[in-house]
């Protein structure tokens, strides 16, 4: 300890005082240009804007809420899934607690090989599920969602994952935005991690969800470039979703349908008060598989399938362009740039790495705390989420390294081998057709 305090620490501080601001920016150009501006400056500017318009937003919200209750529309909740039987009773109980009750619940069992059909039929017989549909052959999540869509009678379709539970006002809050602006075609709910106490892996994801979903999506909504409605909790106008032909083959079908809705001329917004809790993977092995799938879908859908968004054509729309560009830029381009940054450091500042790496970690940790503060400002579960704060220093390793490695691997596999078509998440028969037709 003594040598650290007497020699290493003073030398480290002295080094950074001596390099000056110019060299500091040169060394940490990646952090200053991309991370700091995006995750600190933009976050706080939008947070400030959000705060400033709080009163007006509350008035608009109240007017929309009254309009909703005046009309009291019938809505359809659809839950497609495979082997989700164990979650169905909890889901039904969670929905029974909702403040908004004028809904039908439609569950599609996509070729489950467990007790899901028995459980589903039992709940349907007891009147806890309105429609239970069983497909003997698995067709994939998109086909199951489309089948459910066929049976819906509601004006608004709410798509849920079976393993989610909801705040009592979640359903009401996710449909109120439709009464704020008739150009809104879809609303994304606020998905948070329920099992954050289970493991370190779940805790780090809980922090990530708070920062990227809760805060990140408020920001993108404010900028009009919100581009992913989570499959776990999203609401869609039935006429809009029918006009675009429902869901297409995944993985990544939730992002895909959001882009389709945007391309058809409707707005997509995020509603932070519509809170849904879900179980995140509690092991890094499972998380890696999930993230590989998610990251591959960015290339498959954002870069390939919807490439027309970037081209100057008759349907060109700046907000759609920025929505997808922001997504591709901050994920794909910055991932490549980060590797260039690492190479740059190794070549030009090889002898100073012993000062640069600790400073980098320090910067990211500080930024982590600042970002968490903005998440804290927006959160409705501040007290419960306080237990996540001690884990913030680990986020530099989690997002800065672990997720980046996973992302790089996913992009490489998808760019070079189109690996997403081999993902067992979809049945082979569908993947073959998707690959053949370039979806």
């Amino acid at each position, binding site marked *: 300890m003594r040598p650290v305090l007497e020699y290493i620490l003073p030398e480290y501080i002295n080094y950074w005082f001596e390099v000056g601001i110019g060299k500091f920016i040169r060394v940490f150009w990646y952090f200053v240009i991309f991370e700091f501006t995006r995750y600190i400056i933009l976050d706080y500017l939008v947070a400030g804007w959000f705060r400033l318009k709080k009163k007006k937003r509350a008035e608009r919200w109240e007017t929309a809420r009254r309009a909703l209750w005046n009309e009291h529309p019938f809505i359809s909740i659809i839950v497609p899934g495979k082997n989700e039987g164990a979650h169905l009773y909890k889901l039904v109980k969670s929905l029974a607690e909702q403040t908004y009750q004028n809904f039908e619940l439609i569950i599609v069992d996509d070729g489950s090989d467990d007790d899901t059909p028995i459980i589903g039929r039992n709940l349907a017989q007891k009147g806890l599920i309105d429609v239970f*549909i069983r*497909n003997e*052959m698995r*067709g*994939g999540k998109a086909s199951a969602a489309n089948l459910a869509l*066929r049976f819906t009678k509601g004006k608004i379709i709410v798509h849920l994952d079976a393993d989610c539970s909801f705040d009592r006002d979640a359903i009401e809050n996710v449909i109120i935005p439709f009464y704020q602006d008739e150009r809104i075609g879809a609303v994304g709910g606020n998905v948070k991690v329920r099992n954050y106490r289970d493991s370190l892996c779940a805790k780090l994801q809980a922090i990530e969800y708070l920062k990227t979903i809760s805060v990140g999506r408020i920001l993108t909504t404010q900028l009009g470039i919100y581009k992913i409605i989570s499959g776990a909790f999203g609401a869609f106008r039935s006429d809009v979703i029918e006009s675009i032909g429902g869901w297409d083959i995944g993985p990544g079908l939730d992002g895909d349908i959001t882009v389709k809705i945007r391309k058809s001329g409707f707005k997509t917004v995020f509603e932070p008060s519509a809170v849904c809790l879900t179980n995140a993977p509690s092991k890094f092995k499972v998380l890696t598989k999930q993230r590989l799938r998610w990251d591959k879908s960015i290339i498959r859908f954002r870069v390939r399938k919807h490439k027309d968004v970037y081209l100057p054509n008759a349907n060109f729309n700046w907000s759609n362009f920025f929505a997808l560009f922001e997504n591709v830029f901050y994920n794909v381009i910055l991932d490549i740039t980060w590797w260039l940054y690492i190479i740059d450091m190794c070549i030009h500042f090889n002898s100073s790495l012993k000062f640069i790496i600790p400073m980098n970690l320090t910067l990211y940790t500080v930024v982590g705390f600042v970002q968490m503060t903005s998440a804290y400002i927006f959160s409705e579960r501040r007290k419960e989420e306080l237990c996540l704060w001690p884990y913030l220093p680990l986020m530099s390793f989690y997002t800065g390294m672990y997720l980046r490695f996973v992302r790089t691997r996913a992009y490489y596999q998808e760019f070079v081998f189109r690996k997403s078509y081999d993902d067992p998440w979809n049945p082979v028969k*569908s993947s073959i057709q998707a690959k053949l037709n370039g979806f």
Partner: protein
Amino acid sequence: MVLKSISRPAHQQHFEYEGLYFAQVNRASQLSDPFILDKDGIFVESSRSEEVQQILKQVRGSDNPLLYLKPVFVKSIKLPAHLVALSDGAVNDENLRRVAKKTIGINQQIALVDRQARKSDFKEETLLKAVQFIFTRRQPLKPFRNRKAMCGYLFPFLNAYLPASENLRIIDILEKARKEELLSGKILDKINLCQACDSAFLNFRETCTKCHSIDLVTEDLIHHFRCAYVGPASDFKQGDDLVCPKCDKSLRHIGIDYDKPSEIFNCQTCNHQSQEAPMKAACADCGNEMELSYISSKNIGTYQLTAQGEKLATQGFKNNGIDLNERSLPVGTIGWEFFRIMHQQEKERVRMTGHLSLVGVIQLDTGQFEFLGADSKEKLRQEIVRIVRPYLRSVDVLSSKNFSTYAFLLPETTVPEARQLQETLAFNLQKLIGHNLAIGSKAMQVKLSKINA
């Protein structure tokens, strides 16, 4: 050899063959002549099948074992299978030796049967006749399909003295005897019975979950792999082709372009689409429509004697210690007659000791339960006993006369306790009949009274 009658008065004609004497009967009225009982067998001689049928039924339907067990052979006409089963076969000039041999065999067995056996009621009488018939014929009792029988089957020998509508009682008695190991058997069929009239002629139909209409059309669901569209086949049909309504592509090859993951029911009455089409049954006899859970089923089988059954045939009930009435009592109850004796005894006790003792009666309004079949009534009886018994103490006595009348003695219960018990029983029993049979609370009463000397 030619069959020849021995010259006698017309009503006492008989035929002799190798020391065996057969009464020759051509009219049912001849059966009342006691001379027939002395013969080794009966030859039925009539060219009219109705007359033959009547004679056979009268023989087998008799109360006298010497007559109903008598070997009977039909001469001259061919009978339908179930009537053949009432006789012991046909007789003609060619098969006399075989008939004689069979007659000797049957009579040897009849000699072993207890012909004076006690028969206290219908159940005992039916069972005794059944075991005696199986024992003397040394062949199983077989059911015959018959459209005129409510349950679709007849046991000719037992049905001879009962109308076809009583078949179910026979089946119940035989099945009960099988469970009690008096009979053994092989199940040939299972019949489903109407909840209201016990008819086995039910029509099963799939119905709409929403409007209960039977006008349903089944359609395949088609999943187009390319675009993940899923919908009924009618969505895809364009003439002879299948074209996806979402992406306008032709579906060429099942398994490659598309598959059919399930089926869907379209209701032609209310347009409701569903994968569920609950099956309902409609009775062809009374028209009652019911859910399948309300249908009771019964086994139809052939029956043979067990060792215990043979004992019953040869020794009767009195030597067997078998009392069917006591056996059929619900668990936790005593017989009605025994209860009456205990009630008298309790009266006596109250008179001598001045002790407080109470008696309770549960009475169902039989009129409101008329729609229940015999089986359902028995189930209701068992269920009521199952509910009442746990509320009674070990010293209390419960009895049920039939499905609608129950009585219980409360020799050690105070009046407030009894009132509480009365309320509890009334609440629970009303719930039972209200929830399961949708009958109002007035259909049942629980009454309490003090036993007065």
